[in-house]
């Protein structure tokens, strides 16, 4: 890569070197010359508030080396606005950059700013699908997806179907479960959650649990739905007992079913012995990693606090 110092297009700029404050800087990094130089030119153009095409190239180079630089993105946004730059071109540049830096926050914020200004979600769901092929649990992508759904009212634009397909592919993907909860219970467009929707969600979670009972995600989901609907967890007693027949411990298929049963017994009058038995099964055999937690739950029996 050519250096800025030898580039006639940058001859008018006096680079501003980094002042690291004396002989004992902390966490000093062995920067490559390319980075040090680009940063010196960045400071120089920032100091002049230069809004130009060449600045876009410079910010791009720095973003490639340090995408977490928080003001380089803000500066770039301001330059784009000043030049009335084509935002579709910017988005096209962002796509491969996002793939290269999957875990970077600033990129997603920048994308949000641009898509907001474009006032169109065209192509965004497809782009997200591509990102999720790389990492189906990427936190930034899911957060961005929620923003997109809210900003463009995509509640009924195939999101639930996408989530179902993703869960079919990986029933353990808790990010997909969470998105489902958001789509159903997080609507901000005035659509009321009806009883039949609640029934549908409970049934969907149950169906998924039947396929893979030792998957905590749908158990958390269904308990969340019950709490939302102010229904007692006891309504799942029979269902849970089906995966955790306490009388036949060799047939127990799910520690999460045992967990729920313990919760239900804890809330039932006169069932604390049953609760203790279930918690002992968890502590001793079915989930010994959490023995201390299950014993703590035993110690809480009889007190008003219950997690359900």
């Amino acid at each position: 890569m050519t250096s800025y110092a030898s580039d006639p297009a940058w001859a008018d700029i006096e680079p501003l070197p980094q002042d690291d404050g004396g002989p004992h800087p902390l966490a000093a990094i062995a920067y490559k010359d390319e980075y040090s130089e680009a940063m010196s030119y960045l400071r120089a153009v920032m100091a002049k508030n230069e809004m130009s095409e060449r600045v876009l190239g410079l910010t791009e180079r720095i973003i490639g080396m340090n995408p977490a630089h928080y003001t380089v993105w803000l500066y770039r946004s301001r330059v784009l606005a000043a030049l009335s730059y084509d935002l579709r071109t910017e988005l096209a540049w962002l796509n491969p950059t996002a793939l290269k830096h999957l875990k970077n926050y600033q990129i997603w914020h920048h994308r949000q700013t641009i898509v907001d200004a474009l006032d169109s979600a065209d192509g965004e769901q497809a782009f997200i699908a591509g990102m999720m092929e790389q990492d189906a649990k990427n936190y930034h992508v899911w957060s961005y997806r929620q923003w997109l759904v809210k900003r463009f009212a995509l509640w009924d634009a195939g999101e639930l179907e996408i989530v179902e397909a993703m869960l079919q592919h990986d029933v353990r993907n808790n990010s997909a479960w969470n998105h489902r909860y958001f789509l159903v219970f997080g609507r901000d467009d005035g659509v009321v959650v009806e009883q039949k929707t609640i029934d549908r969600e409970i049934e969907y979670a149950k169906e998924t649990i039947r396929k893979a009972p030792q998957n905590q995600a749908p158990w958390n989901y269904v308990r969340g739905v019950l709490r939302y609907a102010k229904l007692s967890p006891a309504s799942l007693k029979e269902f849970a007992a089906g995966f955790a027949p306490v009388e036949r411990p060799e047939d127990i298929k799910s520690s999460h079913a045992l967990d729920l049963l313990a919760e239900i017994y804890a809330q039932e009058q006169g069932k604390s012995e049953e609760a203790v038995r279930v918690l002992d099964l968890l502590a001793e055999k079915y989930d010994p990693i959490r023995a201390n937690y299950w014993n703590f739950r035993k110690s809480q029996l009889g007190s008003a606090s219950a997690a359900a």
Partner: protein
Amino acid sequence: MAHDPPPSAASLLTGEESVLNHTRHINYWRRCLKTFLPWQYTSNDSNRMSLAFFIVSALDLLGNLDSGISAEERQGFIDWVYHCQHPDGGFRAFPGTDLGELRNEENKIWDPANVPATFFALGLLIVLGDDLQKVKRRECLMWLTKMQRSEGGFGETLGEDGRIEGGNDTRFGYTGSGIRYMLRGYITGPVDGVPDIDVDKLVQCINISESYDGGISEAPFHEAHAGFTHCAISALYFLGRLPESSLPSGPRHDDVIRGITNLPLTLHWLASRQTAILDEEDLYDSAEDELEAAHTQTNSSFVKLSSFPLKPREVPQQDTWPLPHSLQWAGMNGRCNKIADTCYAFWVTGALTVLGHLNIIDRASLRRYLLDKTQHIVGGFGKVAGDPPDLYHAYLGLATLAIMGESGVKSFHTPLCFSQDANDRLEALEWRKKLIGDWQTESLKN
């Protein structure tokens, strides 16, 4: 806040003792302090203040800071931190944005103070033994009030026309409330003419980020995440708004809004983070087996419990249940159905410590996970088993061991993320004692 750990059954089964290689860790951190970090840290250039905090505080935790640096170096490090102090209050996250003498009204938005960096800069100064007298405390607290958004959460930097830039998650609420705590303790209301942040709104902002499963997320309806959960709980500590049952002095019926609206559910979520699934292959295996069992309907005794990767039928019927070999190492994941990662060991144990419930996890297997799986031969800790060390995971691995009372490591003040010694120094600062003392006297009068 800590309780004695109950003896773990797993520890009885291990023959070899896992050890913290004290000397190697000191060497690792001294190298980071005294020589340039490799160029690969360039992508973290804008986080230099937090990297600096990790390096200095790690040596403090290992008891090597005082003997490891000269008086001149100590002063030089303090000077560097002050060099990053922003003219309008707060600290820069790195010197890279400093425009020096060219700074003016038009270009100053490209060189803002940064909320997490200010938290780490103050902590760093305290660890280095500085008295914070050169901190522009009034300006800093004034700037802090401008960093709070109308809905209660904090941002990262102040931008054009006073716009609050950066994310809106509990990391900034945590570090923002931590700055307030260090500079003015639990004082409510204005100090020295500078108004307080809106504490109630920040607590409300945290409460609506609780997820349906009891964890806390980045924002309402986002997925619960151990990092955001820790930050939220530590913020509540700084604000004096933890749930009443978590207060060391017991319930206080003072009608203020408190955080963590369903403590048992949050404890359930935090306890669920411990896992023996240590790599993606394990995760894949357990999912495959189970799905296969479900498909073929031969699921009588075949289901592999994800956190208990032993088929029940293989276990001999005995009175005491022997723990399977793999359960000797159990790390923490950050979200449901993810693999263990060193940093989540910290986020989870830290959150539980602040809530006063560290005893609900299995410390012995977590300790072995860190020491046997992610501790690196050159010192430090990697992200997952087999990874090379990096400053972030190396610090949080060490901090987790400090929280759990590892011998040879100083005791830890979890919310401030540094040693108890450093916290003692903070509490002993004369100006801070006077500020808080005067306020207490004043409140008693009213």
